[in-house]
């Protein structure tokens, strides 16, 4: 069964550094999402992406965050200058159509020191 994959599984970085989290969607999926889960808290929506554009974003997704599909396959989340409070589990999700089920990846644990 096809799965969403994410790399790396764990990323440790220093405050102020840039990080790029990568996601490989299920091959025929067209809708892409990022969510995050701070330890012990609920999963929060960050952004949705379709047709090379952001279609929806939350208030968390400020100018420090960006998304893109640089090569038509990988879907990336970039945090330009990480802060301590960016430490969280980041989940990529993908879907075939806008109202179809979102399939979640295993997540990338980001630790900002």
């Amino acid at each position, binding site marked *: 069964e096809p799965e969403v994959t994410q790399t790396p599984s764990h990323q440790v970085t220093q405050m102020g550094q840039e990080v790029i989290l990568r996601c490989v969607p299920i091959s025929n999926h067209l809708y892409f999402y990022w969510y995050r889960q701070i330890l012990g808290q609920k*999963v929060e929506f960050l952004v*949705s992406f379709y047709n090379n554009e952001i279609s*929806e974003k939350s208030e968390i997704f400020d100018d420090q965050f960006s998304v893109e599909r640089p090569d038509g396959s990988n879907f990336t989340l970039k945090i330009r200058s990480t802060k301590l409070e960016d430490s969280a589990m980041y989940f990529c999700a993908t*879907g075939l159509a*806008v*109202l179809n089920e979102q399939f*979640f990846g*295993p997540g990338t644990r980001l630790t900002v020191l």
Partner: protein
Amino acid sequence: AQTVTQSQPEMSVQEAETVTLSCTYDTSESDYYLFWYKQPPSRQMILVIRQEAYKQQNATENRFSVNFQKAAKSFSLKISDSQLGDAAMYFCAYRSASGGYQKVTFGTGTKLQVIP
């Protein structure tokens, strides 16, 4: 804005018994989807069951079933014949059926412990 509330941070059930996890939500929309996701210790979220708000019939998936009460905005999950592999965090979630709103809104989760 839609909200999802799970009032049970932790629940436990004896193996082979039945447990019900509670969820309430708030929305002004009439058409939407509700989900239960399971997040095992490995942390990849898996969809357990899905309910379309326009359907009156409660969804079932093998040992998992829901009690969907639209007027009360309640969406509980019943797990029958609980197994050790059911131990996980369970998230109730909401998604608008309006195509322009794609985000899934999650509750805070219920940690389910299955006692052998």
